[in-house]
């Protein structure tokens, strides 16, 4: 992950979006390290979201990826199963960041370890300030998420302890930079 400023459409979800909703179990027969299957995971990203709460689909029917770049979430994003297919499907779909009020720990770790998608925490709940489709701009370094439609800006928490791992590009790159494993 080398981008410092991420621009694109926002996709808004609620609290407790669990990994079954991010990538339902029937798609876990796909192996993320097989390129063709990595792409397929992207096409199924967030397809488990109930239609009633999310009539606007993250990946439009028939599409391979998503038009949305920044997911705006509530509390406990990524809870439930440890399946790494979850952050991978989001990254494979073209999304670049999840900005949520809080994250479940295994999902957060998997985002950091894989480098697939930035997991950043907002200072305050954001769901009321964004509509799906709003153009948004996330500056991870400056710690700001801006809604281009409304003009409002929101503070994002610094990455903290994992910053080094995220900036290195994931756990392996980080470990190599520290000499824990050889290049």
């Amino acid at each position, binding site marked *: 992950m080398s981008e410092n400023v991420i621009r694109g459409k926002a996709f808004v979800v609620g609290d*407790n979006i*669990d990994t*079954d*909703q991010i990538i*339902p*179990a*029937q798609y*876990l*027969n*796909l*192996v*993320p*390290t*097989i390129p063709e299957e990595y792409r397929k995971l992207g096409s199924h990203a967030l397809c*488990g*979201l*109930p*239609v009633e709460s999310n009539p606007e689909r993250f990946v439009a029917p028939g599409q391979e990826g998503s038009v949305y770049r920044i997911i705006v979430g509530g*509390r*406990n994003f990524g*809870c*439930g*199963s*440890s*399946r*790494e*297919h979850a*952050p991978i499907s989001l990254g494979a779909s073209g999304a670049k960041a999840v900005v949520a009020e*809080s994250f*479940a*720990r*295994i999902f957060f*770790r*998997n985002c950091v*370890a*894989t480098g697939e998608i930035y997991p950043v925490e907002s200072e305050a709940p954001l769901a009321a300030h964004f509509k799906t489709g709003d153009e948004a701009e996330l500056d991870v370094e400056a710690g700001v998420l801006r809604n281009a439609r409304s003009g409002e800006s929101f503070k994002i928490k610094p990455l903290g*302890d994992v910053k080094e*791992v995220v900036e290195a590009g*994931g*756990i*392996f790159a980080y*470990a190599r930079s520290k000499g*824990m*494993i050889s290049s």
Partner: protein
Amino acid sequence: MGMTITEMILAHASRRERVSPGDNIWVSADILMTHDVCGPGTIGVLRREFGADAKVWDAEKVVLIPDHYIYTADEKCHRNVDTLREFAKQQGIKYFYDPGTESYSGVCHVTLPEKGHTRPGEVLFGTDSHTCTHGAFGEFATGIGNTDAGFVMGTGKLLLKVPASMKFVIDGKLPKGVVAKDVILRIIGDLGVDGATYCAMEFAGTAIDAMDMDERMTICNMAIEAGAKNGIIAPDAKTIAYVKARTDKPFQCFHSDADASYLSFRHYRAEDLEPVVAMPFLPDNVSKVSALQGHKIDRVYIGSCTGGKVADFIQAASVLKGRKVKLDVFLVPATVEVDHALDTEKIDGRTLRQIFADAGCQQPAPPSCAACLGGPVDTYGRCNHGEVCVSTTNRNFPGRMGSADSATILASPLTAAASAVAGVLADPRQYL
């Protein structure tokens, strides 16, 4: 100041005198477990990062347990098991429980203790969120993703942040009809699904002491549903007896210091607890069964690492004995060993299998994770048509057991069995 049991284990595993919550440390793994869903991806990471000829750090510490998508026609699922087979052979993996052979076992989190891989004082990683189950054996056990697991596979180490510990003391004697599942659901209901995020949940008290290992596993199994990093119960004579019957490997027992520091302390009187359920669609949506009696349901499912162990089937049978069920009851023993117990465990001279057959349940299915997580569409017990299912499993998020319009009510095996007899959600205490 002293350390909690979790801190002691992590200090030991990182070769430090002491650790404190928030410390980022490199720990050595004693066991890494993976299964058919995450194994192939983990192997992919290992080879991508360490080379096509990469070797695991220790062929006796990587345990391969295919269990998720075993009984399906899906070709990719068969391929994924084949991937594990090839890997086991190439690496000389000592512990591989191969489907279709004598060595097949079933659900990973019941297999690990059965086969002697869970030992006090150790560090166990698994590519599955319910790896926290094994804290019941007085060890540090947590779920990790494929990339972290690929790292462990190649190096035997992982970077971890030491969690703060939350203490839960349950004292007294559980009333009739109230079992471990009710205890942990009550705790999750009180905390919320993110109430223990990043923390160690340490369980103690006379009611915990009185539980057998199966029941302690149920408690620790669901720590993840409150967001915890790990669940843990200090080892005692029961733990030691269980473990020594299954392995000769030496182990070390740790116990929290009297002056250890906890983030929070909650005390429960066992006598105050009642049968509860978690209604759709969150594991913390917990209510007393007595308040929801008569709620419409379509089927009952008894299985999984949470509710498919021997103790769970004995509980269910204690309610079903001499009674008939009014709706479809799906029984999935977690492992081959549990399946055998259906023929050796008896209540008043009838085996569990006979009791289930007499009651009109479906024949027990071959051991696997089956419909706990839905799975491929041809999975046994999968909810494909909007069913409301009372289940002894661990999660009830939207679509968890199959179709988007299905709903799962999490319950103890007693409540599940009582509901099968009543044909609606029912309080088990009237059947005991």
